[in-house]
């Protein structure tokens, strides 16, 4: 079993071979992209995959992620991977100026979502104990 960390979630997936090969259904669960003959697709957009990154119904998610421009970092034992957001995606989201939405727990563990505050002016600030 391999643990995969995306910017907001954590998945446990059965992987095969070297790298980050998995069933297309698992790849979809982790990345939100669907394997089709054209490549990996989301909504109207398809990203062609290198031939070496697909085999039958299995796909090398690390190779796909690199194609998207995002970092795919493995632990030394290759049992934990972090898939980081592609920089183009982050920059486009910020330049769009719509505040990127997120959900985080409050101090009592209640999940709070930024977009629940529509209709108010929001002063959002970071701090830390350190």
């Amino acid at each position, binding site marked *: 079993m391999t*643990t995969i*960390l995306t*910017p*907001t979630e*954590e998945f446990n997936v059965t992987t095969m071979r070297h790298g980050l090969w998995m069933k297309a259904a698992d790849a979809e669960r982790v990345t939100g992209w669907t394997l089709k003959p054209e490549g990996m697709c989301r909504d109207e957009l398809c990203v062609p995959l290198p031939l070496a990154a697909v085999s039958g119904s299995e796909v090398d998610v690390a190779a796909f992620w690199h194609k998207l*421009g*995002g*970092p*795919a*970092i493995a*632990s*030394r034992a290759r049992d*934990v*991977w*972090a*898939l*980081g*957001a*592609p*920089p183009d995606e*982050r*920059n486009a*989201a*910020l*330049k769009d*100026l*719509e*505040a*990127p939405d*997120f959900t*985080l*727990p*409050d*101090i009592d*563990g209640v999940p*709070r979502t*930024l*977009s629940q*505050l*529509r*209709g*108010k*002016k*929001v*002063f*959002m*600030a*970071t*701090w*830390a*104990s*350190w």
Partner: protein
Amino acid sequence: MPVWQHLYEELKDKGFMVVAVAEESRGADHARPWIEQAKSSYWQLIDVEHRLSDLYNLVNVPQAIWIDETGKIVRPPETAGSTDHFRRMDLKTRTMTPEDQEARRAARQAYLDAVRAWVTTGKYALNEGEVRERLPEVTPEIAEARARFRLGVWLRLHGNTVEGDRQMDEASALHPESWSMWRQAADLDEVGKASGPGFWQRVQALGEKPYYPPPKL
């Protein structure tokens, strides 16, 4: 945080909300004493993985983003009231000169007054072009640093300290401008280390560069 509570109390009936996000990989219990002391009634969120820093390309605390009623960013990430006067303090007595204390207080007041003016009159909201121009760019190095930081925090929380530290070191090397990554890693190593001798060496190495770039109000 007590000042943010005052601001919130004063302006909450004018459609205003404060969201404080603790970048705190040790988790909620580590932030709790400060939160209880502040007696805050706005949102106090706990961000173990520094998700907000990833989404908004942040590098330090405190940094603030202003968001209008429609959910649009009207001021990009910028220093939220802190100043560099601490760099000149006497490290033995941990005190600043009266002049520096006064200058620091005035800068913080000017920033809070700007928030107040924004809520009541709309002043200090930047236009779209100005916000875009001031947004810091997410580079491939920063994106990789975020992924390594995420992996490092996870590994540490799952008992793999050595490799967790290594990933966080690499994250800091890839994104040296991020004080949050470096200081969080130091704090995970040992509480207090984030403001220890290693921190002061890094601050000194900044030379003329600011630790807290002043907001261009």
